[in-house]
């Protein structure tokens, strides 16, 4: 058996793959957080709850309506996005003139309500969501065995991340969005409907979280608690990367997933802690974050 640093190479690659999967979700979620924060100046604590909501809507569509994975991949982000836009219109839009901390506290309360409701109705145990038949099984790559669905998750998250990046950097809508981030009053004066832009942005962020949720459903179990622990790790990712750049959020997400996977190989006890330790080190050496402009 091939060994690398005294570890069988299969085990190493296997953990790196797990890390890459986790990293895919970190990247998609921190991307959504960065998009929302960029324009709304709100840290969306409910992002984990929206991710859970996405997975649950997918699960409920399957169980109650018999709607499978592929239609859900389209329906779920739309549903979560619409939900997000409604919340933004009804509540978040009233908080823009206040200290950003109020946005954090409001979305924290929202996360508690969403999670509490699902816990009340569905308990805390996880519900399995079957891998779609098209992606069942795996492929032997010669040096390791790759379950097809996991390969798809990595591919899909890359597509989502690059797509969002292109949307923001290369399209007209994206240019409005970036301009409104710099100076909302001026952009409004040029006749762009900034409040609508804010609503759409939050909807986009929520839809990204929902999409991550339905992608995650077959990998992890669908449970009301799946979002809350994840969101704290994603916050650490966001602190490490800095929210100044979309690309930074994406790259940091993947990197930390891989770092976590590597730690699981060499020192499994610390794998829960490694992201936070990296955050502490980054704060000591480069307080603004790896990609951050100084806040």
């Amino acid at each position: 058996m091939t060994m690398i640093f005294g570890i069988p190479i299969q085990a190493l690659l296997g953990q790196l793959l797990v890390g890459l999967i986790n990293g895919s979700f970190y990247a998609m979620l921190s991307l959504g957080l960065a998009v929302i924060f960029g324009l709304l100046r709100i840290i969306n604590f409910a992002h984990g709850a929206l991710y859970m909501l996405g997975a649950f809507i997918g699960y409920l569509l399957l169980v109650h309506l018999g709607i499978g994975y592929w239609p859900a991949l389209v329906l779920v982000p739309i549903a979560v996005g619409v939900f997000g836009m409604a919340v933004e219109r009804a509540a978040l839009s009233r908080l823009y003139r206040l200290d950003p901390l109020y946005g954090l506290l409001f979305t924290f309360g929202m996360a508690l309500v969403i999670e509490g409701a699902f816990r009340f109705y569905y308990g805390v145990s996880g519900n399995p969501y079957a891998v779609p038949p098209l992606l069942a099984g795996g492929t032997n790559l010669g040096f390791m065995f790759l379950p097809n669905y996991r390969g798809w998750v990595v591919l899909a998250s890359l597509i989502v991340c690059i797509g969002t990046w292109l949307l923001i950097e290369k399209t007209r809508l994206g240019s409005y969005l970036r301009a409104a981030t710099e100076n909302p009053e001026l952009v409004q004066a040029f006749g762009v409907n900034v409040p609508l832009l804010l609503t759409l942005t939050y909807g986009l962020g929520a839809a990204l979280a929902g999409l991550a949720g339905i992608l995650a459903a077959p990998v992890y179990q669908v449970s009301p608690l799946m979002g809350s622990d994840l969101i704290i790790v994603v916050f650490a990712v966001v602190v490490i990367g800095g929210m100044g750049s979309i690309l930074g959020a994406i790259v940091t997400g993947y990197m930390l997933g891989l770092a976590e996977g590597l730690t699981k190989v060499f020192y499994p006890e610390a794998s829960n802690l490694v992201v936070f330790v990296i955050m502490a080190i980054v704060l000591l050496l480069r307080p603004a974050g790896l990609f951050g402009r100084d806040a």
Partner: protein
Amino acid sequence: MSELTLQERRAAASVRLEWGLVALGIVALIAAPFFIYPIFVMKMLCFALFACAFNLLLGYTGLLSFGHATFFGGAAYFCAYAVKAWGWPPEAGILLGMGGAAVLGLVMGFLAIRRQGIYFAMITLALAQMFYFFCVQAPFTEGEDGIQGVPRGSLFGIVDLNVTMNMYYVVLTIFLIGVFAIWRIVNSPFGMILRSIRENENRAISLGYSVGRYKLAAFVMSAALAGLAGATKAIVFQFATLTDVTWQMSGGVILMNLLGGIGTMVGPVVGAGLVVGLENTLATSGFPVTIATGLIFMVCVLIFRRGIVGELYARWLSPAEAGSDRDKA
């Protein structure tokens, strides 16, 4: 001119009224265990002190920590372990818990003050989660079970704490000392500098204050006092568990402040009483506590940012003292 004197008269009247209410509150607390289940009042007092310690940071320095469960729950673990495993007397255990919380506060504060505002909140949350994972894995916390059967012992070898009434008045004394300490801190010159940092950090810097040190000092003090509350709770309930170090606990103490009134002396006490009372009521009703908590959060942030006491101040007493509504024009 006449308006000024009117205002002065109102301010003086409000100060008299405040002291009257505080005296009334102390008398009520002394009498409380004869009318209400003492253990429940002790729980309220521990959380009230925790909330006041948190308010020192949020209300008077303007720093939102999302990781205060670390100090509350951490101190409970240290105290419970010292008392149970090493046979320390309760007063030594509580002091150890407080000291341990201060050290944790020094480390967390040192890292977190490197960023501001929203990042500060996220960093404290992440570090508190790290401490939570540490507590899950560390052998001395006894994992999911927690440290159970902590003996109450006797205070200074004289006062037997197994007698509920003795325990109650010790807790009340600790609470009053803690709150008095916070009152002294926020009304000292040091406290004035903290307020200036809250109001305008850049101006405080330009006036020559090393803002970082003041923030760190406030953070450590707040952590130590939160630790005092947590360690006392461990003695009262004779256990220390993971519940006290979760992020839900950090959220709970924010809620107590938000509901009662951020930046008022009495607000956190009122908020803690209401939240603990609500949790007790809901525990038997079957309605999930998290949903109620979340709804209160949302309502408070949307329409009730001054909190109960802050709102009372704003309506009936001198407007200048009406808490810190952090609205920006």
